[in-house]
């Protein structure tokens, strides 16, 4: 277990370092930041002074090390737009994004778990077909378009639910459906195929022979084991929702990290963009690490030696 833990931590660290390197390179590709900071009519001397002040006159590897040092203390510089530390600006918005991601995940599971289980139990029947159609649509309809349709029908036409902003639990419903829409397909399919495997196994047959109620057999014994592959997906999709709800946040004017980063891209506010990319990468790595380590808890058979 310890060797495995160390290896996974090491992989995670390499991944974060890689992300830092990509951000650093992208920052250099972006052109001379000094040109953005100084007025148009600044003299050669002003440029040189500014470069020295920012450390841009030093060799690239040194600059990278300085960048790393700052990154580890969460210092990505000040937002050009808001004149406040970039990372702090984003962390302030993290709760909104977290709330949306959790709600999206809840929606996805609420739909995928019953559908996955039922379509395995009633294989080939109408539930199974419905699940198949939903899975196909889920992958073919982009989440942001689903969001627009939800706004059109449920907010504009029927006026059942609010479409924009974050003011109460009701505001969470539509964006959560739009965000949770995509993973439903994959989750349902995964759960269905692992349920099918397990419903064929000896211990399920034993349980039935012993006269356990079918409901207990399916929902308590089969689902518990079939959920292991689903757990992996939950982690990956949750990480994706946390770090990738950009378009959905824009569609619903949700005041989260993603929307702030999109705004920053338009404003060429590089410190915020960089901080956003790194925040996403770190969240992604950490969530995946936690998922990997949690297998042992769900399924005692998987204990890393």
């Amino acid at each position, binding site marked *: 277990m310890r060797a495995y833990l160390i290896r996974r931590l090491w992989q995670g660290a390499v991944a974060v370092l890689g992300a830092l390197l990509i*951000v650093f390179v992208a920052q250099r590709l972006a052109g001379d930041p000094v040109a953005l900071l100084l007025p148009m009519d600044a003299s050669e001397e002003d440029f040189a002074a500014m470069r020295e002040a920012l450390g841009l006159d030093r060799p690239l590897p040194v600059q990278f090390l300085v960048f790393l040092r700052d990154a580890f203390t969460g210092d990505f510089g000040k937002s050009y737009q808001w004149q406040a530390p970039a990372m702090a600006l984003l962390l302030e918005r993290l709760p909104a994004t977290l709330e949306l991601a959790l709600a999206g995940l809840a929606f996805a599971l609420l739909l995928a778990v019953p559908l996955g289980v039922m379509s395995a139990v009633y294989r080939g029947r109408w539930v199974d077909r419905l699940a198949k159609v939903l899975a196909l649509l889920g992958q*073919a309809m982009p989440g942001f*378009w689903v969001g*627009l349709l939800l706004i*059109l029908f449920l907010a504009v036409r029927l006026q059942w639910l609010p479409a924009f902003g974050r003011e109460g639990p009701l505001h969470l419903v539509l964006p959560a459906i739009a965000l949770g829409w995509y993973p439903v397909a994959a989750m349902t399919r995964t759960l269905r195929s692992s349920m099918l495997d397990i419903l064929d196994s000896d211990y399920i047959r034993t349980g039935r022979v012993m006269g356990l109620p079918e409901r207990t057999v399916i929902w308590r014994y089969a689902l518990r084991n079939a959920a292991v592959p689903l757990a992996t997906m939950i982690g990956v999709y949750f990480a994706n929702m946390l770090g*990738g709800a950009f378009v959905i946040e824009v569609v619903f004017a949700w005041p989260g990290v993603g929307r702030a980063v999109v705004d920053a891209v338009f404003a060429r506010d590089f410190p915020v*963009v960089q901080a*956003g990319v790194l925040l996403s990468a770190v969240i992604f790595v950490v969530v995946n690490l936690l998922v990997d380590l949690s297998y042992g808890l769900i399924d005692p058979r998987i204990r890393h030696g």
Partner: protein
Amino acid sequence: MAERREARFPVVSCVVLGLVLLCAVVGPWFAPHEASEIVLAESMTPPFWRSGGSLDYPLGTDMLGRDILSRIIAGARVSVTVAVYAIGLSGGIGAALGISAGYFGGIVDAVISRLIDIQMSIPAIPLAMLFAAVLPPGEGMVITIIVLTYWTWYARIVRGEVLSLRERDFITVAKVAGVSSPMILIRHLTPNVLNTLLVLATLQFGSVIVFEAGLSFLGLGIQPPQVSWGGMLADGRNFIEVAWWLITMPGLAIMASCLASNLLGDWLRDTFDPKRRLT
């Protein structure tokens, strides 16, 4: 996932994809209007089956009186162009790296595998934001972003396939017979992963269309006056209360192309790899 005994050839999918490709290649010839032709007098005309609609503008017009159908046809060109370049490049680069990693093993494999790990641990959309902030917007940028995020797909799967192919007799025999490494890679390994590549590429088509539409919707992808489905959705979003067709029609185009390529991809996979049909 399906337990179809024999997978049926997806005729409808091929027709839809054929139509999309046709629009992309010769669309301007048969589109009823010029995609960017502005007729303010006809703005916000509903689709023909609604009162006030007309067959001159079968799917209605937008806020500037531009014909939605013609714009969807024009948008197909952008989507297909981006998809073809993005899939070709990411597939080519990914396959080359995957084959090398699987065949050579050792340090080559270690380096390429770490690269894959790093790339895969950075979620695609934030990475896209980073590049959108740095590169000039347009088709080139969208293609670059897609290639950067998708090559790992091909590399990872091809590497796995080559790892198992490498141990097979025909490769061992080739090596013993003194065939050079580049020759083994090109003549013996590549043909054996072509099926997989074709399946991945078909499945990626839909995925690329959605990705491009998302970026263009945000305003970070294809820039006007070039027409894109995502851009049309962004325009329509501002008029969602008065003109439902502005956000439904381009979305349907995205959905149809994506659905068609997914179904075709599933069929190809089932056909090439009958084992999967049972699961």
